[in-house]
């Protein structure tokens, strides 16, 4: 089987000393930021972008991937122990997990979260290995019209799943696309939206934008909130769940893993959606749904498996189609592009070492997380107590260094300052920044595909309706918009996405 030789190649790449080191570093760092409230994987990946440019692209991606799934582990630890979900995707875990901790069963809750995540991680690694190659082969057949429609569909799916108003989300995508166009136009050489600033000739620096919005603007918002009380940590006790617990959870873990794997692939999906959906499903199928919310171990097992599976399978659209399903993926696309690698179907054929290395590293990383995390729980508890005032000056400092060192360009720092104000206003006005970031990354590509498609058809817009694949994506986009506009589903969606 070709897949197995590919996985073997991947392990050959991922198991080198250097890459294991970066994998461990990423997973550990991810756990730390997952534990710390107020700083998430997006911020961390954004802060590490400049560092990643000095690394091999494979190592850089391995480290960033580690941060992403490591954060899912860390987030659940604090959700269970002190009812503060370190990550949005762990919000659901705190419902039953923290109840369990109060009942003196913190250990088994943590244990099942880790074991469920590990199992889901293993399965998701295989899903990526088997699912990605056919998708990439299909994508190789795509022409510019198909790509344009695909990107449109991806952006609309991201809108549907964003929290808050749909109109605002669409507007943020459009604004992101516009921001992405700033700088010299590749085809005409004309400088667009530079307003006479020499430093903007290369466009708005992606790192400056993402650090401003996800780093510093978030700090400004966090500082306005009153410092919350850190809850009481119960006795952790025995970490390993009993056999009865494990048997009780096996169906939930299986359901969570399958649901998470599927939802992760969808654009706009990923860990957050997966955990919410898995919990809802468990409640629906359970024989005694009353126990949910009262410390049911299945309420921890299912969403934890689902969010880890979703986190990993969300790499599929990123690596095979070049479509980011969430902001973290958008940042990774940005990182790959700086290395001269355009994410898309060619990555698998041109850089198999990179693709399979990253896939294999996910399995290694998950193993490390189980081994590292459970014994280190005491340390994580102490970390949670770190006051925010000790953290945010560091975030600001790292963002400044990061933005400046990308091009040694002071304009980038000024651009970051501008977007801090902009990002702050967006957060104040409930305009989610995630669609903006996705639009920003896809903007130049979408324009290029639109240009090429119209060039081939000599300006006839019917080109988008001439291929069944393109029509399929357009119909899917229209359906998504229609569905979300229907009042009944809208109410449901708000309910499901409300924190």
């Amino acid at each position: 089987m070709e897949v197995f030789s590919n996985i073997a190649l991947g392990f050959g790449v991922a198991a080198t000393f250097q890459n294991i080191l970066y994998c461990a570093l990423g997973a550990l760092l991810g756990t730390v930021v997952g534990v710390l409230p107020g700083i998430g994987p997006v911020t961390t990946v954004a802060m590490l972008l400049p560092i990643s440019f000095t690394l091999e692209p494979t190592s850089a991606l391995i480290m960033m991937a580690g941060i992403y799934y490591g954060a899912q582990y860390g987030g659940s630890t604090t959700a269970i122990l002190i009812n503060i979900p370190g990550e949005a995707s762990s919000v659901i875990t705190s419902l039953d997990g923290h109840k369990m901790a109060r009942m003196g069963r913190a250990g088994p809750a943590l244990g099942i979260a880790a074991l469920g995540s590990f199992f889901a991680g293993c399965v998701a690694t295989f899903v990526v290995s088997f699912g990605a190659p056919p998708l990439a082969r299909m994508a190789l057949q795509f022409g510019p019209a198909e790509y344009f429609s695909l990107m449109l569909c991806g952006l609309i799916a991201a809108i549907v799943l964003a929290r808050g108003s749909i109109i605002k989300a669409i507007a943020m995508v459009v604004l992101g696309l516009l921001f992405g166009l700033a700088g010299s136009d590749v085809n005409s050489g004309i400088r667009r939206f530079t307003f006479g600033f020499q430093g903007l000739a290369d466009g708005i620096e992606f790192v400056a934008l993402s650090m401003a919005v996800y780093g510093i603007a978030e700090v400004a918002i966090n500082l306005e909130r009153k410092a919350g009380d850190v809850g009481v940590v119960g006795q952790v006790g025995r970490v390993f769940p009993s056999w009865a617990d494990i048997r009780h959870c096996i169906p939930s873990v299986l359901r969570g893993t399958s649901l998470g794997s599927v939802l992760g692939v969808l654009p706009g999906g990923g860990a957050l959606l997966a955990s919410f959906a898995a919990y809802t499903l468990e409640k629906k199928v359970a024989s005694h749904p009353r126990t949910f919310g009262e410390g049911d171990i299945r309420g921890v097992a299912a969403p934890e498996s689902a969010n880890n599976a979703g986190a990993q399978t969300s790499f599929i659209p990123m690596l095979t189609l070049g479509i980011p399903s969430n902001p973290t993926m958008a940042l990774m696309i940005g990182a790959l592009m700086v290395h001269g690698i355009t994410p898309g179907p060619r990555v698998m054929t041109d850089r198999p070492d990179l693709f399979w290395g990253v896939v294999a590293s996910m399995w290694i990383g998950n193993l490390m997380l189980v081994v590292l995390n459970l014994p280190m729980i005491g340390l994580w508890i102490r970390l949670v107590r770190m006051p925010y005032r000790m953290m945010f000056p560091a975030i600001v400092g790292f963002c400044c260094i990061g933005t400046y060192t990308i091009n040694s360009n002071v304009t980038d720092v000024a651009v970051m300052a501008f977007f801090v104000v902009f990002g702050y206003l967006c957060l104040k006005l409930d305009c989610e920044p995630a669609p903006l970031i996705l639009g920003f990354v896809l903007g130049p590509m979408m324009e290029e595909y639109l240009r090429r498609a119209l060039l081939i058809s000599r300006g006839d817009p019917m080109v988008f309706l001439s291929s069944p694949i393109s029509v399929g994506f357009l119909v899917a986009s229209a359906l998504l918009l229609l569905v979300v506009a229907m009042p009944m589903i809208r109410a449901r969606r708000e309910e499901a996405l409300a924190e």
Partner: protein
Amino acid sequence: MTIRAPKDFWSGLMFLTFAAVGLMAASGYSMGRGGRMGPGYFPLMLSIVLGVLGAILLLRSLVLTGEKVEPIQLRPLLTLVASVLIFGAMIPTLGLVISLSTVTLIAAFAGRDTRPKEAVMLSIVLTLLSVGIFVYALRLPLSVWPVF
């Protein structure tokens, strides 16, 4: 005329402003003709869509009732922006040590419960750490001390 949904109203206004800037700038670029899309084509399209969306939000906010905007606290925001700008002004000539210790020290005062002594300590530790990580370990192109 009353604003019933302040959050929508202000975001509508923000999108309209960006759309207006986009329209003005894009109208200066060539639209292209036939199958040859000019540099102005896509930005113009996007600006129009953005303008329409902004207008919808704005008009809707006069009819439908929505959430209020929580009061803007200027201290954290302005302190953070100022610290970033000061960093930008200092870093090319003054080097990492001076710029970074300044930015972290100023930024620390964006919070309400800042303790001056702690902020100074934190700034020193962060600067030492960063010089170690970014300059010596990662060899990023940064000068440590002022260059004249």
